[in-house]
């Protein structure tokens, strides 16, 4: 079954991002440096929305993620292709313009590049639409590559540590930590239930699938409920008073890394401004 193969693959890749986060060559770099680098670059990519800058950022991030963090090229490429379906639909939808007449009405009326006429409405692609779509395409891929750099090099526990540093509400962080821990437990449970259901022809027809999936969801829900009660009991037994306290690991702050990040970001800002001034795409 192709659907099942697909599912297996998806799960493998999901866990893969997380396992790479714990085992990559940049693991011992201070998490604040990594997140600052990823988020600043992401913001620059978003603000300037220039095709050239985005392309530079994609190459830069790919270089850092594959070259410095040691993520295998094949895995990285596969991951980059994951959000492609949304990107394609979204970009094509943005590229297509509609108009009631023969020409596009607007501030700078342009010629259609391609056009279909359905009764009075014309659907087609204009140069402006195409340019906007291209900007969007590269901008999205650029920011996605920044996101991947962060999620592939920084484990979630450290991101939670960062959240604590920027003083997000403690309740919010604690909830994210509980959720993170139990995602893996429940995922395993769901996988086991799915395996046993499908080995009993639980997914042999559409009607069976709906029924099985409903049972799986309900069983998972009840398991979660019991798990939560067990967790609370064990925590209370260990003196839980409403706060989960964990030791934060210490990371060396590297002046060299910070200088490098500042240099790279300044270079990106300057080139972005230059591109903007020269009206380059």
């Amino acid at each position: 079954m192709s659907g099942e193969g697909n599912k297996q693959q998806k799960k493998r890749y999901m866990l893969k991002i997380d396992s790479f986060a714990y085992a990559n060559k940049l693991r011992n770099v201070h998490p604040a440096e990594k997140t600052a680098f990823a988020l600043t670059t992401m913001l620059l990519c978003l603000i300037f929305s220039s095709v050239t800058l985005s392309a530079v950022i994609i190459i830069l991030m790919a270089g850092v993620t594959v070259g410095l963090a040691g993520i295998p090229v094949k895995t990285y490429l596969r991951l980059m292709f994951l959000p492609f379906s949304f990107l394609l639909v979204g970009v094509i939808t943005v590229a297509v313009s509609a108009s009631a007449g023969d020409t596009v009405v607007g501030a700078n009326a342009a010629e259609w590049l391609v056009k279909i006429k359905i009764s009075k409405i014309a659907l087609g692609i204009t140069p402006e639409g195409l340019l906007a779509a291209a900007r969007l395409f590269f901008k999205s891929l650029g920011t996605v590559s920044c996101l991947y750099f962060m999620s592939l090099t920084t484990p979630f526990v450290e991101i939670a540590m960062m959240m604590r540093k920027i003083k997000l509400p403690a309740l919010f962080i604690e909830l994210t930590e509980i959720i993170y821990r139990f995602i893996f437990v429940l995922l395993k449970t769901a996988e086991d239930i799915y395996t046993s259901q499908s080995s009993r022809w639980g997914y042999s027809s559409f009607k069976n699938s709906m029924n099985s999936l409903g049972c799986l969801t309900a069983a998972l829900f009840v398991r979660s409920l019991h798990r939560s009660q067990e967790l609370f009991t064990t925590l209370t037994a260990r003196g839980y008073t409403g706060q989960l306290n964990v030791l934060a690991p210490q990371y060396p702050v590297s002046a060299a890394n910070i200088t490098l990040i500042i240099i790279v970001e300044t270079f990106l800002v300057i080139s972005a401004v230059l591109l903007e001034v020269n009206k380059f795409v």
Partner: protein
Amino acid sequence: MRMLSEIMKSSLKKIKLPVFIILYSAALLLTLPQNAYAMHIMEGFLPVNWAGFWFVLTIPFLILGLRSIQKTVTAAPSVKMLLGLAGAFAFVLSALKIPSVTGSCSHPTGVGLGAIMFGPLAMVVLGCIVLIFQALLLAHGGVTTLGANTFSMAVVGPIAAFVVYRVLKKTGAPGWLAVFLAAAAGNMLTYITTSVQLALAFPLQSGGFAAALAKFLGVFAVTQLPLAIMEGILTVVVFNVLTTYNRQELLELSVITEEVPQ
């Protein structure tokens, strides 16, 4: 030589239209098997001002949600674990796939189920956290579009589902119908909100927002309409199983729904 270029030109003109249609439908078809991504706006897709706007709009709801959870938690500390498990449950659900008629698959949002069980305010916080994990672990959604996605999936969807459920229950509609319509409404409104967000960010030169909205609604309706119905059916099945075999747990949960104010 000139004739050749003329022939090429005319044939190009002839080709254009069918090629365009084929390319467009091919792109649509390509994306159908993996329309799991149609639900969330991907990373970097919204311009900076709109991304910020949705963040600002979502934050008050997040604060309200956190406050209501805090209130419940101080009264009954075990609820925190329960909500944590519920969040993990929602994430795992989103990693599962709904089987559908075309062989394509997508995931349930779980928005309706969560809103009925825990109330819409708690769902804002849970939804936001689940979206963070989807972005980090699945590259599904994103950090910059977190505000917009939280607003559509964790603010509008749950409120719609909750209101529909409560109103139908009050009017004495059968339980399964209330659950079905609540879940379907939660799913549909999430998708409509996403379309509105995209249309606001990318209005058309002619026709502006309204035309753009029609365009986005049209494109995503192909995949989302059947999904909303599917999610409705699935939620009904889940509810039936729960009420048949886990009456006790549901009774315990209804305490929470009362404690988390609307």
